[in-house]
């Protein structure tokens, strides 16, 4: 049943989006076929797809981890950007060091950047009760403006689009494979390993048990001598660290620098992914693959003259149905009954 709800939601969302595509006078079957080919048709499509999936697994984990502790970290977007800024700062200032040193240091910088940014919201929630939804959204905007400032100010380099210099060669993650203009980034391995680590942390350790307990019932946990405040800050820091790692991966494995509008909504996609994956690290891997496929496919869909914003609508409808899971459950139950009736 637990996997049936997201799957049904995806199907309903695709059906509703098909109606929207029809309304602008385009053929939805054709649009979806182009989308499928764009996401899975050939090695280059797969490389682009996996490349998009890499940061999405991490932002999905970031948001999902927060959810497990009852914290709505809507700030993965800003945390990703701060991670990218930190990683870039360190990456461009590394001299002649070997990759064995440079890669972990740059990665760690990204992790710390994200953790630091999220901790601000965590600390404010613990200290003053400021709601994390508001503070993380404000921190997102601040991160956007800070990134814009860095790429036109202190880090600005070259002409044209505002951007930073490239990070040192030694800090760049080599691709697993190169197909035409697309590369299959080795960072995908980092993402999968992170998902497994989060799974172990949540399900096999005391810290994970405490975090889940706080999320499940904060008052009972407090009575059970689990420090609420410590857990809020810790959860936020870990959540932000994951989003920051996503930013570092984007810098180290894909773009090798930061530029304006660096994230492009990957942090917000993390919310969709966490919800579709039901906050389960392994479920999140599959959910990230779903969203990256939709996004990769939608780029191709523009050749069929269907704006790629259709994906945002599809994502919205999926989340809406996941929120209203009772509607979907009731629907599924009714279908099960009518099916049962036929066989009798």
């Amino acid at each position, binding site marked *: 049943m637990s996997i049936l709800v997201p799957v049904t939601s995806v199907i309903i969302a695709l059906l509703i989006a098909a109606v929207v595509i029809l309304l*602008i006078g385009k053929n939805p079957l054709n649009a979806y076929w182009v989308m499928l080919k764009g996401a899975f048709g050939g090695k280059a499509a797969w490389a682009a797809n996996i490349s998009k999936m890499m940061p999405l697994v991490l932002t999905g984990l970031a948001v999902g981890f927060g959810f497990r502790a009852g914290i709505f970290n809507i700030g993965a977007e800003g945390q990703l950007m701060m991670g990218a800024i930190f990683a870039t700062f360190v990456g461009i200032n590394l001299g002649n060091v070997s990759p064995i040193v440079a890669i972990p240091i740059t990665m760690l910088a990204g992790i710390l950047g994200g953790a630091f940014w999220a901790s601000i919201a965590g600390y404010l929630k613990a200290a003053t009760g400021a*709601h994390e939804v508001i503070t993380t959204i404000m921190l997102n905007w*601040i991160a956007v*403006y*800070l990134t814009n400032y860095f790429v036109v100010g202190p880090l600005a380099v070259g002409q044209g689009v505002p951007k930073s210099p490239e990070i040192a060669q030694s800090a760049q993650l080599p691709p697993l494979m190169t197909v035409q203009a697309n590369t299959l980034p080795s960072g995908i391995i980092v993402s999968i390993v992170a998902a497994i680590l989060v799974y172990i942390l949540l399900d096999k350790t005391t810290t994970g048990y405490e975090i889940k307990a706080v999320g499940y019932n904060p008052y009972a946990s407090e009575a059970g001598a689990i420090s609420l405040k410590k857990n809020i800050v810790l959860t936020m820091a870990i959540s932000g660290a994951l989003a920051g790692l996503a930013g570092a991966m984007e810098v180290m494995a894909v773009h090798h620098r930061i530029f304006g509008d660096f994230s492009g909504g990957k942090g917000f996609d993390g919310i969709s992914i966490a919800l579709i994956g039901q906050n389960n690290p392994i479920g999140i891997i599959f959910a990230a693959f779903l969203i990256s496929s939709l996004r990769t496919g939608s780029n191709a869909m523009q050749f069929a003259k269907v704006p790629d914003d259709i994906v945002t*609508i599809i994502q*919205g409808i999926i989340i809406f149905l996941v929120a209203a899971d009772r509607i979907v459950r009731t629907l599924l139950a009714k279908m099960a009954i009518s099916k049962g009736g036929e066989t009798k």
Partner: protein
Amino acid sequence: MNIFQAIIYSFSTPIFYKLMLLSATPLIFAALGGVFSEVTGVTNIALEGIMKISAFSAVVFTFYTGNPWIGLIGALISGLIFAWLHAYVSIRWSADQIVSATALILIASGLSAFLMEPIFGQSGQSDFVSKIPKLKMDFLKDVPFIGQIFDELSIFVYLAFIAVALSWFLIYKTPLGLRMRAVGENPKSADTLGVNVFRIRYFGVLMSGILAALGGAYLSIGELGQFQENMPSGKGFIALAAMILGNWNPVGAMWAALLFGASDALNIQLQSILDIPSEMKALLNLLPFVITIIVVSGFVGKTRAPAADGIPYEKE
């Protein structure tokens, strides 16, 4: 001019107060919307999405009919539809209200971006359309200072303050307002006393749709005469902060919205006065967001949300 002088100078100009009113107006509408919804016990962080879709609908309806008043009606209808969706799943189906609202923000964002190209032939921004006329105060023309603030303001500005007064009266001085507050504080006992909890909550959420839609329509057909894809740019969320800071009270929310309006106006003023590099000016855009964080974390301890806010009510 140093930054301190620039701030003092800003405060002494009428243009600062005019900018403050203009920036505060959409925040007042949306914050009032938040108050209506949350007083009855339903959180509505979808205000940002409602503002966006209604700003868009306002321009689309005006574009096709040439009449901005019909555009306004279009905005209100789209605001009501989105608010109804939120109400339906969170009241009827006990959905997680933050998740449902997040979904609506995405749908509003996706839908407005998706329809740009088929309707206007380009993405990013729409064509210019006619605006709701501004109110000219000719008799104030010769009054110094005040005259320059009020000579020509959008009707929405006045409407926002009227809405504050009416909302305050409705929530604190009428039987309906008493029922709304009862449902938000303790739905179970309200239910026992014969109040229809579901119907009152629908009313609260639908009102939030109307008010946020007014805020959205103001942005597009009130001020600019155009829709831009990044349009509310966080105003829906700043409005939520204003609502919290205003202690879920229409008048308090108005003062908070004015404070945020002032920080926005200060940002605009400083960018034009200060003699600093342009990338430093861009950094001043942080100001309203930093002030929001400071204010929300500094004052929130003294405020209190309605007790049943965000908790679905289920009849046994």
